């Protein structure tokens, strides 16, 4: 619904004044007041992007959509060098919107609209970055709304179409799933009655579970994070039921036929051991304390492993020897507990 902004006072008392809390915050940041700010078009070559290398990859993706649509949100920058923010030779450090600036550069833009601060300190820069993220924190709801509208209009839009346009697949896939939730749940999200974390858990529910929660929403119940978490928990527990049943019954004993078979492949009686000499992971205890044919075999293989023949042997032979040593070791261990 379109509403004339004149209905909302431009400066209500609680937003216009610098309250004591804000004043205290500024004092802690070493400032008397917020520095002066103007919205200006700034040439890209005047902008310094800290740690650009770290964000280059994601910026390239964003560049695609900037090429088509333009830069919709002005980055915040602060004067770094120069007499004045209007100085043609001034340079500015990007405080918030580094990825957007880099993407604009990659998209071929030569100047962009920025919120330009006359001065800044590292503390203030951090605060501005924090405020900007706070202002954008509800953006996911707008994305869900837009996606829902596109879905409702049945334009046949796919995730691949949007990724090709420059959207991040993982992020958008999640919003798309939120947009595809039953209508009462989407309405809750769009109304701001559901946080993002709750929405993310909702999309992990099966359709049946989602519909159950949707009925609760329709009945006017509050869809809290706890409600969704409980439903998800129950669903996953249900999936674990066969394992839980096994665990409740204790470990299944090996079958007699498997127990008797000491050398089938893969060895059916493992329960590896670790006591004794851990040279190369093998226990020498078993090698020397028993005279079984398997022990003799292991000794022979070990001797061969130490011989010149082994060193001269092709890789195939050496690998086969290692495989056999490991297999015999497993069988010996098996023999020790049967």
């Amino acid at each position: 619904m379109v509403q004339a902004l004149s209905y909302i006072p431009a400066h209500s008392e609680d937003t216009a004044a610098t309250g004591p809390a804000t004043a205290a915050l500024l004092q802690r940041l070493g400032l008397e007041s917020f520095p002066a700010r103007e919205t200006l078009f700034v040439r890209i070559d005047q902008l310094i992007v800290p740690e650009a290398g770290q964000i280059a990859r994601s910026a390239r993706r964003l560049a695609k959509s900037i090429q088509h649509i333009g830069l919709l949100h002005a980055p915040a920058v602060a004067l770094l060098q120069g007499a004045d923010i209007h100085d043609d030779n001034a340079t500015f450090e990007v405080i918030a919107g580094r990825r957007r600036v880099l993407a604009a550069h990659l998209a071929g833009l030569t100047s962009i609209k920025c919120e330009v601060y006359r001065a800044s300190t590292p503390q203030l820069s951090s605060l501005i970055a924090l405020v900007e993220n706070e202002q954008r924190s509800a953006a996911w709801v707008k994305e869900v709304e837009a996606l829902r509208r596109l879905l409702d209009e049945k334009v046949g839009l796919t995730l691949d179409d949007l990724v090709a346009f420059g959207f991040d697949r993982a992020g958008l896939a999640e919003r798309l799933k939120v947009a595809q939730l039953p209508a009462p749940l989407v309405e809750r999200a769009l109304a701001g009655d559901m946080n993002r974390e709750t929405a993310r858990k909702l999309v992990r529910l099966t359709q049946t579970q989602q519909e159950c929660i949707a009925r609760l929403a329709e009945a006017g119940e509050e869809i809290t994070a706890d409600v969704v978490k409980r439903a998800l928990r129950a669903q996953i527990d249900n999936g674990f039921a066969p394992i839980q049943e096994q665990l409740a019954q204790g470990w299944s004993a090996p079958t007699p036929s498997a127990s008797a078979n000491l050398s089938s492949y893969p060895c059916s009686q493992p329960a590896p051991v670790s006591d004794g000499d851990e040279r190369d992971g093998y226990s020498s205890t078993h090698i020397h304390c028993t005279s079984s044919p398997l022990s003799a075999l292991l000794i022979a293989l070990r001797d061969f492993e130490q011989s010149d023949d082994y060193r001269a042997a092709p890789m195939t032979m050496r690998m086969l020897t290692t495989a056999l040593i490991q297999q015999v070791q497993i069988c010996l261990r098996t023999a020790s507990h049967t």
Partner: protein
Amino acid sequence: MFDFPKAIPVPRGCGEREPGGIYIECGLSDHGLPLEAFLVDPPLPIPEGLDLINKSQLWQRTMPSGEPALDVWEQPIYDLLIWIGAEFYPYCPDFIEEVRRFGASRRLNPNLDLSLLSRASRMILAHPSVLNTQWQSQRPPRACDKAITGHAGTPGQDEENDGSDEWDDGEQDEDEDVLGEVYEDASARSTAIAQAYVPTLPVAVSAAMHTGPCLFKMWELIPQEVVQTIIALDEQHAETASLPLCLRAVGSTVYQYHPTGESPTGLVPGIFATLPITGFALIRFADGSVNEKARAKVVAGIESHDSQALPFYETDR
């Protein structure tokens, strides 16, 4: 502290243990059960809604009735859900064979509340390619090491097939002779050793008798192309074609398998094992210290679980 089973600190498929890390272990013991007792066959699908990929997490165990499962001290039991990534273990047998030889050792996020884990806890392991959706169109595996009816044909057929490469009492002397003889050259010895493993294709079972999907089919589905060594075996069985013996090395593990050449497509994520936990290993930094945050959590676990607590040890590797 008393001695307890530990994993063997060899280089693994996922690399060597890192200083400062905390690792949860399923150690090795002469007194333990066979690994097969802890394998889940058929593998289970990962419960819908569980976000497990690369995120180890604690999960409170519940009884089938929905009530919390309690240990002998009436404490709730928490299991550890662990994802075994395909980047280090492309095939599930890579990990299983490593555990069989060296025990399990998995690095944990020290931010997890490790004090919740006790002796009753288990590692519940999942792999991205372990649940075989194509099993009905494939041959049954040569053997099901859990001997589940229908996985590898009828029980009678299982016995018959397994006899081809067993070292049972009757064959042991012969095998020993083969392997103990001094060969003039390495390749002759190689062939002789390889022949001890001559496998055959399983006898076909009718679709009605074939159940699955069997975990042990995973070995046969590893493509021949991904191995380090292939040994072509002499045709010994005129009626059934023999399969090549392949050796695959992952970390310190070298294991053998016989690929059937069937396509490994159709493998999806699943749960394949529920290993017992024998303790924690804290890997020392160069200065001899360990991750104190992690240590504090396992110590807290010892205090709260008393005799059911999991032990820990400090080690250089």
